[in-house]
């Protein structure tokens, strides 16, 4: 079955670490300036999602008991839905209130086009 969001091994490692340090996690993909277009990682429930958001994926990470939800605003999803997202991690300062910034790293989205077969499976 096709997925909309995957994670790199390095990102999965960081998620396990943050889960251990802080508790259950969620992501919300940001848009706009400065640190926009980056995935923001919060404690599950810290960011209040609503009718204007889409749940893209419930990520299953080895060593993390509960799924890690990955959200995006519905209006942004309309513009992103033809692409597959991979959560990666790079060295950086981050910003926003994302949990990983103090570790000197930053989650980053890498994208590719979904294939026609994947789009069919996901629709």
């Amino acid at each position, binding site marked *: 079955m096709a997925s909309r969001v995957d994670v790199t091994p390095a990102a999965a490692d960081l998620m396990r670490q943050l889960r251990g340090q802080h508790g259950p996690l969620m992501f*919300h*993909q*940001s*848009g*706009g*300036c*400065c*640190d*926009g*277009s*980056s995935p*923001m990682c*919060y404690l599950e429930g*810290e*960011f*209040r999602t609503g009718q204007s958001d889409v749940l893209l994926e419930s990520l299953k990470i080895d060593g993390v008991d509960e799924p890690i939800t990955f959200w995006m*605003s519905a*209006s*942004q999803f309309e*513009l*992103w839905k033809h*692409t597959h997202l991979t959560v990666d991690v*790079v*060295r*950086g*300062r*981050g*910003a*926003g*209130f*994302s*949990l990983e*910034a*103090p570790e*000197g790293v*930053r989650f*980053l*989205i*890498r*994208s*590719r*086009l979904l294939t026609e077969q994947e789009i069919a499976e996901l629709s």
Partner: protein
Amino acid sequence: MTVYSAPGTDGAIVNYESRYDHFIGGEYVPPAKGQYFANPSPVTGEDFCEVARGTAEDVEKALDAAHGAADAWGRTSTAERANILNKIADRMEANLEKLAVAECWENGKPVRETLAADIPLAIDHFRYFAGAIRAQEGTAGEIDDDTIAYHFHEPLGVVAQIIPWNFPILMAVWKLAPALAAGNAVVLKPAEQTPASIHYLVSLIADLIPPGVLNIVNGFGVEAGKPLASSNRVAKVAFTGETTTGRLIMQYASENLIPVTLELGGKSPNIFFEDVSRLDDDFYDKSLEGFSMFALNQGEVCTCPSRALIQQSIYPDFLAAGVKRVENLKQGNPLDTDTQVGAQASNDQLEKILSYLDIGRQEGAKALTGGGRADLGGNLSGGYYVQPTIFEGNNSMRIFQEEIFGPVVSVTSFADYADAIKIANDTLYGLGAGVWTRDINTAYRAGRAIKAGRVWTNSYHLYPAHAAFGGYKQSGIGRENHKMMLDHYQQTKNLLVSYSPKAMGFF
């Protein structure tokens, strides 16, 4: 041509301290948990100082200091506050070159921009609000012969301000000047990517400001920004950044029932109508400069004109001239006054831009120039440089819809006026836009039809005080850069006064 020596090296006109604590109650205060983080220069990628890693305890201490100072500050006369703002401006002006080099070194932007724009604009901003607060008046409404409604402006009290990293000093001043003019005490958190240049500014002006009126807590968003933004001890939060954090700040503000102002970026269209090419004259040259403005500040501007829309009838020639113009931009050492394009502000910013160059190509956009990381050699090899890049594609591509915050423009064509406005408004954002035409009717109608807070008309990237700046749609709430900003930092007090000695007759 001048090449400034890097701060901390022989011949430098400005040096950073090796460590910065929080600035609370008029003095430097170490972080409660004793932790610091390293601050690298994007010019070389090497650390040049360390900065306090603040936590909720430090935020509380800053809020204590601010609350201790707010009442007395709010009662000072407008003349007194205006004099202090003017003195700050004078002090900055006397140290303009040092401030410009300091900000260049921390942010990576070319020193010619900080010398000519960032710091002069910041100086002028203090003077503008010094004048605005002196000239501000309340009102007296004559309800009837016996009843008068007086309206007074009162400060909010203690306000929180969270500053972005793209203009570390100017964006701080955009928020500070109106807040201080209006009589508020401030707790300010600089971006963790650019935490030090504001402290260099404070080192110049600290003696001018009563202790506790301005407090600076450094640190990471989650550790220092969140306790500040969610505090029930602030009367307002001002934030510049991105949409998810903007929503989170509104969410915290809703818990405390306080107002926010948010500036959350854009994807600004820059529209070139066919008549710009009618003559090969100064105006045509100016419009090509306008096209190239996406590279200003390495594209790290919320209003970066990152979508260029060119009318089909002039598309090939205008675009070719634009490509040539951009290929002549001089990228190099930000400390060199000849450099036009410097370094991106951080490694993660560099990586994000490269990820967009990748998805742009995957979606079929064609890079007409640039398209990759720039290695400038020598000790600049470790810095974060991206080639100015022109992509050709269509408005449904992600590079047309997302703010890349790099020196990247996405170009497409339009058939006629209606098509131009349709494409321009086909975006989630509405912060800035550009309209280029020799026809005043087209200029006026396009400017009014574009759903954005600022439409530069036959100009771009001017940021004078007294021109309101802010967003439509998902670009945010509120305005900056104008005297109306005082309203964002003031309460309205109404005294409803009866001058009649007679009972109303109800009871």
